[in-house]
Structures are given as structure tokens and as C-alpha cells.
């Protein structure tokens, strides 16, 4: 914990952390200093002048708060007459050439210009000369659409691409009225984190071609969750909405601040992985090729399980810890071989040293911590004489090619519990639709041993059971996710004092608690 210092804001004493600038320090205690160009991840630039605050006694009378470190005994003026005037004047300046096309702007509703206009300006424009017009709807590549008229030239996007991705595709060209952000000719934004500039842009100058015009942001329900795109497990916000007479669908993922995992950003692949939650889903329960009632299929499965002399249970490394515990209990009850074989989920060389991991499985650490064997050898040995394979959403097509799967399965009967409808599910003797991670609550551990809990975001019209419920129907002694969590608390010592709702939003770092204390 950093040292605390005391300073005064508008004459009131507040205690803040030392070593931060004024914007961050006082925002931690709930006092907002308006700022446009400053972003904690990109550092202070000081070009927008929106964060100018007054200092009583000592130092210059006016300082940019983003570039001023908080110091003991500082007397900061925020609501003085002359500061208000500065804020108002800066806003008036920012809005001189603003096209005010909020009705067609995707940023409307989460736009800093709108917020600050309402908070600090609230005056009509005094412009009597024609506005400067610039280019609109420029395709910057990488799914980014740029509108130069809306741009306030804060340079956040430029700094992001220079400092964080170090690709530097964007630059600000020309000066004053003609200053604009642009790409170099023929060199579009081409990196795997490019879409973060859409979030970074405080106004509507950068919009995502993927989300463009799909939905107004105030309709979206925002639920914190965890990305399942790779083993990094970035904290995200799921923005979803159910339109009238339609199904609840996800419109976008946005990164959620988590200093322990992903900071402020996430990769493009993860951001666009929301599509997989909406599309290609398995929604039926099938006996062979025929759609049946869920209970009929479960009854069929239970008969099959009773007849089988050797059963193999395969789990996906994407399942939550609760689900893994349920499936493990099921396998123990059935006397079946449990495997988490999923070598195909690892794409060697795909990852980088930032937020993308080679391993595309969200919870491989969970398999390890629960002691579920994931080796190819033991899985194939078990499959050699298996009569029945119960597959909990493990995508075998990632690990084997078509002939490989055929020789692996042989004449083994299969029960496929799957979120998505693919060829393997189509060939399965029993197919059971299960909910995907946006539709259940659970806990996952990322590649850095950070345990995060996520809640249920989407409620489909046709709600599907989750793996815990299916496992219970097939004979697992754990009846629901709650019981599975209690079991999980016994397996992971660090969880014993936490209920799911109490797990901090930043997650629990098992490295510095008691990863060694794992008993399972």
C-alpha cells in the first residue's frame, strides 16, 4: 500500500495516495477532475487543458492536474470562478468545429464531450463563421472507422499505437484548424490490439466497424465477465441486450480494468469472440439425428451409461472450476476415466508477451489444480477399449484431423454435451445442448494463476442447462453449481474464506496466497 498524504481540494481535506498525479489521486476519493487527453495507461500529455486546476500558495496559480504530482498540503482549487471559466472556455473551444452529429454517432451516451458539455459548458455556440469541415468515415483498417470532424486531437490513439503496441500507424498531421489524425498512405492499422483505440477515444472519432450502428449504447446491459478466448482470461464487460420479440444477444465485449490481468486493454480476437456466443450454437437435444425432449435424451444417456462397461469422460479446458468439479465427481461415481486432453487448444507461436497466450483454453490451470489428467497418452489408452465417451464440450477437432477422430472413436458410443453445433456433435449418438460462459456464473484460473469469478450475463429465451446440471442428471452427486463450489473450496484452500460473490473484481492471485495449499 502506497503512502497516504493529505491535501486540500476546494478547502476540504482529503487523504490520497502519494506518487500519483492529481487526476488519479483525487479521483480515487471520488472527486472528478475533467480530462480528455490524459489516460492512466498512456501517461500525461497535457494537450487538452481540460484538467487545469488552481493552486493556492506556492507554485504557479494554474497547473494541468494530469502533469502535477499530488503533494502533501497542496491546496487545489476546482470550483473557483476562474477555474469554472477555464473549463467552460476549453469546452467551448473543443466544440467550435464539432459537427454535433450525436444522433448518428455511436459514441453518444458514453461521450466525454457530451458529459463535459452538460457538466461544465451548457452554453450555445457563439460561432458566426462557417465550421471547418474535414473527412468523415475514413477506414483506418483493422476494423476502425475514423471521423476527423469529431476528433479533438487529444492523441490518445496515436500514443496507444506508439507506446503500447509500438506499431505507430497513426499520426497527427498539420497544425491548428487543419490538424487531423490519419494513417500513413497505404498503411492501415494492422496490429492485434488496434480496436482498443475505439475505447480509448474519449469522443466518437474512432468507432468500430463491427459495432457500427448495431445498437445505441444506452440500450445495452453491461455485465462484468471474463474473456474465454485464451488462457490470459482478460477481464471484460459483456454488453448485451434483448430487443423486443428477439433473443438476448451480445453486441460487444469491452476490456474491464484489472491491473492483475489485462490492465485497460484486450486483444482484437478476444473482443470479437463475442460472435461465437451468438452464432452456431447448439440449441437442441438429439437422439442420433432426431430432436427430442431433454429428459428423453437424458434417460437415453443414463441407460447407455448403465450398459457401458468402460466409460471415458472428457472435459473441456474452457469449463469453469465448478463444472470441472461436477464432472470429476460424475466420473468418480461412474468409475469412468476422466481426461482433460486438449493439446489442440494450444496454438504454438500464436501468443505474444502481452495479452495473447498460446493456449486458447480459458481454464487449463483449473484442470491442473483439480488433478485432472490431460496427457494424450492416457487419453488414447483409455479410448482404445472404451465403450462410451461422454464429452463435455471438448472440441476434439482441434486436436485431431478427421481420420484421426474416426480412428480414435472407432465404434465407441458418444454423448456430446456441446455449446456449439459442429460435425462431431452431429455424429454423436446423444447430443445435449449446454449453456456457454456468458450464460452461467463460474470461476476460472488464468495462465498467471489469477482466479476470477464471473457472473451470468445473458439469459436466452430458450435457457439451456449448464454442465453442472447435466452432470447431476447423469448421476453426479453434486446437484448444482453451489454444491460444486463448496467442493471446490475444499480443493482450493485460498477459496475457503470466499463466497463467489465476495471474490474481488480483480481476482485472487493464487501465487501469493496459497497455491501450494492445494489438496486435490
Amino acid at each position: 500500500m502506497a503512502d497516504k498524504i493529505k491535501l486540500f481540494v476546494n478547502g476540504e481535506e482529503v487523504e490520497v495516495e502519494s506518487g500519483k498525479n492529481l487526476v488519479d489521486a483525487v479521483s480515487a476519493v471520488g472527486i472528478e477532475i475533467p480530462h480528455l487527453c490524459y489516460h492512466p495507461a498512456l501517461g500525461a500529455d497535457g494537450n487538452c487543458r481540460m484538467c487545469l486546476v488552481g493552486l493556492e500558495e506556492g507554485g504557479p496559480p494554474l497547473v494541468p492536474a494530469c502533469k502535477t504530482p499530488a503533494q502533501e498540503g497542496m491546496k487545489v482549487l476546482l470550483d473557483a470562478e476562474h477555474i469554472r471559466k477555464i473549463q467552460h472556455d476549453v469546452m467551448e473551444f473543443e466544440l467550435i468545429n464539432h459537427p454535433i452529429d450525436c444522433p448518428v454517432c455511436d459514441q453518444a451516451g458514453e461521450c466525454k464531450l457530451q458529459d463535459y458539455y452538460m457538466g461544465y459548458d451548457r452554453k450555445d455556440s457563439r460561432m458566426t463563421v462557417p465550421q471547418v469541415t474535414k473527412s468523415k468515415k475514413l477506414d483506418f483498417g483493422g476494423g476502425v472507422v475514423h471521423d476527423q470532424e469529431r476528433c479533438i486531437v487529444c492523441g490518445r490513439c496515436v500514443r496507444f499505437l506508439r507506446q503500447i503496441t509500438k506499431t505507430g500507424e497513426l499520426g497527427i498531421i498539420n497544425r491548428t484548424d487543419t490538424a487531423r489524425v490519419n494513417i500513413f498512405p497505404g498503411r492501415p492499422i494492422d496490429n492485434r490490439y488496434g480496436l482498443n483505440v475505439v475505447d480509448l477515444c474519449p469522443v466518437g472519432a474512432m468507432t468500430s466497424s463491427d459495432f457500427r450502428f448495431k445498437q445505441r449504447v444506452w440500450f445495452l446491459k453491461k455485465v462484468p465477465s471474463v474473456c474465454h478466448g485464451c488462457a490470459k482470461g482478460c477481464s471484460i464487460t459483456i454488453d448485451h441486450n434483448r430487443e423486443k420479440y428477439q433473443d438476448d444477444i451480445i453486441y460487444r465485449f469491452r476490456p474491464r480494468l484489472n491491473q492483475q490481468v489485462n490492465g485497460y486493454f484486450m486483444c482484437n480476437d478476444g473482443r470479437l469472440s463475442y460472435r461465437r456466443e451468438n452464432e452456431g450454437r447448439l440449441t437442441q437435444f438429439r437422439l442420433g439425428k432426431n430432436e427430442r425432449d431433454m429428459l428423453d435424451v437424458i434417460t437415453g444417456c443414463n441407460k447407455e451409461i448403465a450398459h457401458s462397461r468402460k466409460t471415458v469422460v472428457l472435459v473441456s479446458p474452457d469449463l469453469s472450476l465448478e463444472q470441472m468439479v461436477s464432472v470429476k465427481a460424475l466420473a468418480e461415481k461412474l468409475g469412468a476415466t476422466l481426461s482433460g486432453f486438449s493439446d489442440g487448444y494450444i496454438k504454438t507461436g500464436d501468443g505474444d508477451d502481452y495479452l495473447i497466450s498460446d493456449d486458447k483454453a480459458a481454464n487449463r490451470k483449473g484442470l491442473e489444480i483439480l488433478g485432472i489428467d490431460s496427457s494424450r497418452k492416457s487419453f488414447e489408452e483409455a479410448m482404445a477399449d472404451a465403450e462410451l465417451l461422454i464429452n463435455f464440450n471438448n472440441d476434439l477437432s482441434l486436436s485431431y484431423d478427421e481420420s484421426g477422430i474416426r480412428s480414435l472413436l472407432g465404434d465407441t458410443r458418444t454423448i456430446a454435451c456441446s455449446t456449439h453445433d459442429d460435425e462431431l456433435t452431429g455424429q454423436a449418438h446423444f447430443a445435449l445442448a449446454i449453456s456457454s460462459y456468458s450464460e452461467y456464473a463460474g470461476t476460472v484460473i488464468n495462465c498467471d494463476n489469477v482466479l476470477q469469478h464471473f457472473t451470468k450475463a445473458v439469459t436466452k429465451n430458450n435457457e439451456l442447462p449448464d454442465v453442472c446440471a447435466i452432470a447431476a442428471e447423469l448421476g453426479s452427486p453434486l446437484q448444482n453449481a453451489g454444491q460444486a463450489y463448496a467442493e471446490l473450496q475444499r480443493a482450493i484452500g485460498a477459496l475457503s474464506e470466499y463466497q463467489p460473490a465476495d471474490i474481488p473484481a480483480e481476482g485472487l492471485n493464487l501465487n501469493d496466497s496459497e497455491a501450494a495449499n492445494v489438496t486435490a
Partner: protein
Amino acid sequence: MGAKVKTIARRGSTLQERIFLIEIFKGMATTFGHFWRNLLDNSKLYVRHYPEVKPEIPVRWRGRHRLTSHEDGSVKCVACFMCQTNCPAQCIQIQAGERLDGKAEKMPVSFNIDLLECIYCGYCVEACPLDAIRMDTGIYSVTGKDRESFNMGIDDLLAKQGAFTEEDYKKGGA
């Protein structure tokens, strides 16, 4: 402050009133008086011969909606969703798409109003920043043979013109 109290004498206690028959006949006399007078001469009747004679609709009457268009016939709406956001009955459903005619960036691909759900409050008209939706068609009677016919699509909404001149409409407070 106490309200003004006016005391009204209670009637019905005299002998004549308590023998109901007399009062009934007095009442019937009034009724039949009107009946015969109206039967013989209905020119003074306070009744409109609807639907042969239609009422005059004031400009500010909130009738069935329409979408307005530019002079070249293209739709004014830019799909900002203000009307859908403001609609208390949630009867408006819009889908937005890219606009390529240079008038704006965005336009409605579909714009549906379910007239069975609409409460004709006029909030959509108030919310519209572009005067793209109006309730000035003068249609006060919406009829149909099935539910689907009450679901107005973008073409239905664009087809109808306003029932008043632009000048009168503006005078009406728009």
C-alpha cells in the same frame, strides 16, 4: 385553507316526491318531449352524422404517425433511436444501417410502429431532433382486419403525407 362549502338542500322528502309515480311521469314527459321534437326535426340535434360527416381535426391532434422525407423523397430519419428510447409503450422498433446518399451517415433499414401498442402520446415527435416523425396525418381512426395490419413498416409510414400545410403545422406549436 378550507374549501368553499355550498350547502344544497336535500330533495325527495315531500309527499309528492315520495309518491314516485308523479315524478316518473314528469321525467317521462321531458324524455318524450325531446324524442318527438328530434324525430320531427333533427336539424338542431347535437349529433354528428359519422361517418358521412367527419369531424374537423385540429392541427395539433395526434393522429397516426408518418415519417417525413426530404424534397427528393429520401427519408429524413437518421435512425438515432431517440423516439424508440423515449417511447413509453415501446412500440417503435428500428434497425439502423449505413446511408450512402450523402445526406447523413446512418438511416433506418427498418422502422416499425406497432399501432396496437402505441398510446399516441406524441413523445416520439417531441424527441425527434430532425422533425422526421410527425403525427399530422389526420388519421384518427385506425382500423384493420388482423394484428399484422397494425404493424406499420417504413414504407407505410413514408407513404402518407401530412394533412395540413407546413405553415399551419408550424403554427400548431411544432
